[in-house]
Every structure is written in C-alpha cells, then in structure tokens.
C-alpha cells in the first residue's frame, strides 16, 4: 500500500485527531458544540466532493440523503427503540440504496439538467414526507426525554453523538483519500474531464458514476441520523434544507474542488466566517446577504479554491497538497 506513505495524509489525520481531542481533553461542551458543527459541515462537504469534485456532477440537492438518513435513523430510534449506532448505519444504508436506485437513472443527465433533477428529487421527497402521517407529517417527530436514558442521560448522549461523528469523519477522510488515489478515482476524474473520451478509453462510466453517487450518499445519511438524534426532533424543513446543500458546495469551492484537503480547509474557513457573521450584532441580521456576497466573490475570483490556488501557484506543493 504505497499510497499510505504519503506524509500529507498522515499529517491531515494527526491534525484532525488534534481537533477531535480538544473538546474531550478540556471537557468543554462549548468546544464540543463548535467542533460538532465544523465536523458536520466537513463530513457533508467531503462526501459531496466525491460526486461533485472528483466526478464533476453537480448534485445540487444532495442534502436529500442527509434527510433520508436522518428520518430513517430517527424513526428506528423513536418507534423501535433501536440504539443510535445501528440506527445511524441503517440510515446510511437506506440513503445509499436510494442513491443507487436514483443514480442509475438520473446520472444519465448532464450539467444543469442533472442539477435540476437533484433539486427536484429533494423537493419531491420533502413534499412526500410532509404527507406521510407515520413520519409526523409537516410537524415532524419529537423525542421523549426518556429516549436518552439508555445512554446515561442527555448529556452523555451528546458526547456519544460527538464521538460517533468524529469517528465517522476520520473514515470519510480516509475513504476520500483512498478514492482519490485509486484507479476508481482516476476513472472518476477522467469522467469529470471528458466523459465521452473516458468511455471510449474503456471506462464503464455509468457504473463508475453510480458507485460514486452511492458512496457520496452513504455518509450524509449517517451524519443525518446522528445529527437528528442529537437534535431531538426532526421536521421536513430542517431535514431537506436546500441551503445546507449549497453551504456544502460553497465549502468545497472555497477549499478546492476535487482535493482531499479542500473540504477541510473550506470547512474551517467557512465555519470561522460564519461564526464572525453570526456573533457580530450589526452583521447578524444581514448574514444571509453577506454569505451571498462572499459566495459571489469566491465564484468570481477564486473559482479553484484555496488549495487549488496554491497548487496552481506553487507546482512544488502539488505532491503534498492532496
């Protein structure tokens, strides 16, 4: 396994481990909440990066898989008293299964048509869930406080959610790295650069795309289940919020499209900026408009992202900035 000799990857893992351990060492709930938000953004962006960054398919409504996983996990915990961990894994599997079935159909569409189809799927699922009484309809579902008792109370359940998300994040980064440095990843990137040429060169693009889509839906499903377990309630508006999808895209764009490090850098910068905007009383009301301005600046002037810019500017760094 020559690929695991890359020092950059181990540095990244060590860095992430440092961030993960910080709230555990200080036992500070505040640091934990901050890290949780960061990890959620990072996990969503890094998974989306597989289909969007590596393969070049703009899954605009990708948050649908977060919602599907969230609802599946929540339902299993709520109705059948499952433990959170198996419920979250099943949430991920259901999301991945949905992606597999949908993907074999909609991945035939290219460019903007694919983007619109994913928005349509997100809206269709959201509208459908609003009409299903067993999922709580448009008001959603709530946990009883008793749900958290097997975990040793709500406080411990919050810590458990944090550990699970942190562990999942490490796995996501590992998968993202393996995919990028594998033959499968090279196939995906060749589809991104020129799908017709890739097909002619013998890449089974339909199969590659479907697996990339499935993989990039699996992790958001688990993240959704963990998030809504911690949240204690779930409703269609929160689970299928298109804005969160776009935030993940912004993180990828900000950090660098199609790189392992990109989403990490993007998520850290984005989370800091968002914190600044939300804390400042003057900017708080305007934070939506300000994120619009920030997004426009990124799109217009640094469309390759921070990591991409460094790679272009300093070719020496290409070996290290994976």
């Amino acid at each position, binding site marked *: 396994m020559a690929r695991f000799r890359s020092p950059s990857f181990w540095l990244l893992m060590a860095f992430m481990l440092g961030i993960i351990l910080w709230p555990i060492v200080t036992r500070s709930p505040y640091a934990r909440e901050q890290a949780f938000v960061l990890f959620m953004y990072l996990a969503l962006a890094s998974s989306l990066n597989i289909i969007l960054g590596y393969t070049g398919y703009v899954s605009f409504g990708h948050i649908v898989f977060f919602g599907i996983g969230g609802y599946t996990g929540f339902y299993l915990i709520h109705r059948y008293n499952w433990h959170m961990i198996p419920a979250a894994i099943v949430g991920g599997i259901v999301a991945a299964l949905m992606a597999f079935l949908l993907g074999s159909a909609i991945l035939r569409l290219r460019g903007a048509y694919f983007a619109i189809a994913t928005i349509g799927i997100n809206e269709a699922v959201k*509208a459908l869930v609003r009409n299903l009484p067993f999922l709580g309809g448009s008001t959603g579902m709530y946990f009883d406080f008793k749900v958290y008792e097997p975990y040793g109370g709500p406080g411990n359940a919050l810590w458990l959610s944090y550990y699970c998300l942190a562990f999942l994040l490490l796995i996501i980064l590992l998968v993202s790295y393996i995919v990028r440095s594998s033959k499968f990843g090279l196939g995906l990137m060749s589809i991104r650069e020129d799908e017709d040429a890739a097909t002619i060169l013998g890449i089974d693009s339909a199969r590659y795309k479907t697996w990339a889509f499935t993989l990039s839906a699996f992790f958001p499903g688990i993240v959704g289940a963990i998030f809504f377990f911690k949240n204690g309630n779930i409703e269609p508006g929160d689970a299928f919020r298109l804005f969160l999808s776009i935030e993940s895209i912004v993180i990828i764009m900000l950090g660098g499209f199609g790189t392992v490090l990109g989403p990490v850098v993007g998520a850290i910068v984005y989370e800091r900026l968002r914190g600044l905007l939300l804390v400042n009383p003057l900017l708080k009301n305007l934070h939506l*408009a300000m*994120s619009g301005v920030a997004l426009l600046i990124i*799109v217009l002037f640094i469309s390759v992202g921070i990591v991409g810019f460094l790679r272009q500017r300093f070719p020496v760094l290409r070996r290290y900035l994976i």
Partner: protein
Amino acid sequence: MGVFFASLVDGLMLGFVYGLAAMGLSLIWGVMHVINLAHGPFIALGMFSVYYLGVKAGLTPYGALIFALFFGLLAGIVTYFVAVHRVLDAPHLTTLLATFSVNLMIIGLGTVIFTTTPRAIDIKLPSVSLGAVSIPATRFVAAFFALLSAAGLYLFLYGTKLGKSVRAVAMNRAAAELMGINTVQVLAFSFGLGTMLAMIAGGLIATLFPFTILSGSVYELKSFVICVLGGLGNPAGALVGGIILGLLEGGTSAFIPVSWVPVIEFALLVLILLVKPKGLLGG
C-alpha cells in the same frame, strides 16, 4: 362535476401566470445557458414592487406593473454585469452558484427590509360565477395580463431588430458577433428581459395570493417544472407547460389533498427529465 370544471378554469387562469414566470427562466437559459437561481427572489421583488407602488403609493396594482417592468429590466441588467458576465463560459456549477449568490443577497436584504410578515393586496372586483362555484375576477385579469405580456414578448422577439438579435445570440453567439451584433449588450438585455418577466409574473401573483419575501421560491420551483415540461430554452413551450401545470393543479385538487400536489409536480419533473429531457414539445 361543476366543482371540477370550475377548478379546471381556475387552474388554467393560474397556469398562464405560472407560464409567464417560467418564460423568464426559459428565455435566459435559451440565450445564455444559465439557470437563474435568483429567479424566485425576483418574482418576490415583483410582488413587493406592486405592493408598495400599487397599494402604498396609490398607483393601483395594475398600474404598478408598468414600473415593475422597468425595475425588472434594470435589476436584471445589473445582475448580469455583477454576477453572470464574468462566468458566462464557466462550468454550470459556477453559474448556478453565481446566480444563487444573488438569490442570497436579495433574500437576506429582503428579510431585513420587508420582514417575513405576510402581505396581501386587496382588489375589489366582482366574482365570476361558473355554475355552482364562483371564481374571483382577479384571476381572469391576471391571466389576461400574462397573455398580453407573452404576446408582447413574441412581438418583440420576432418584430424588432433588438428582438431578432436576441434570437440570433441564442442560436449562435459567435456567428452573431461576426454579424456585428454587440453580444454583451444583447446578453445583458436578455437577462434583463428574463428578470422583467419574473417581476411581472410576481406582480400578478401578488394580486391573487398573500405573499412574503420568501414566496418566490415556490414559483421558482414551479418554473423549473414548467420549463422541463415545455423544454428548457423555449419560451412558447414554457407558456404551454404553465397551462399544463395549472390544469394539473386545478384538476387534481378536486380529488386529492392540496399538500400532495407538490409531490406530483416534482415527481413529474424528474420523470420528464429522464424520459424526454427536451420537454414534451421537444423532438
């Protein structure tokens, strides 16, 4: 039966207005292959310009439409130069995000300025009775204005020099440039035109339903469905798509709860994209 017929007529009237909104989206896609994700907020701005100019400034709602028209054209041209021009030939993701950033700015400023309290425009017009059911006359007036605007757009596109250059740029930008057309001006103007249609449609919707600054997104998503029905980039198809969607909404609302309508609409969107991505009218 009477109820079914009345809701079909009602749906048809709404369909013209939806179709007008979708025409704006379709026109912009047809000319420059950009999906305008700021379409919804522009529809909402149309609603508010009719509300403030028509009701607060006393121009009457229908009179305010004229101002919404110019305001829309101007807003579109500004948006084109600020957000779209530089990334016109970039991948779709870039233009999607660029127009979405405009969406965020308008919604962000709009929620601060207008808040999210629902507004409504009260127009005193008699109802038209159709058998057992009566339909407010505002529906018919709105449909009439929508048709008038659509006809105006066609006269413009086929009858004037500028309109012809818009069509030329849509067909082949490089060739149009070689024929001496200033494509940058035409592109900016087309974006303005698309935004203008969104604003007029928004203004007309405001005379029918209560609204907030966030209401536009509902009609933006409907516009997607309509454009896909009628074929993206084909404004006439958009009008037909709007009528189909309106009839569908009116027809189904007699049999199933209204909350199921969006499920059907979006399922239809995905289905048509898969089966006939060029739209029902496309080849």
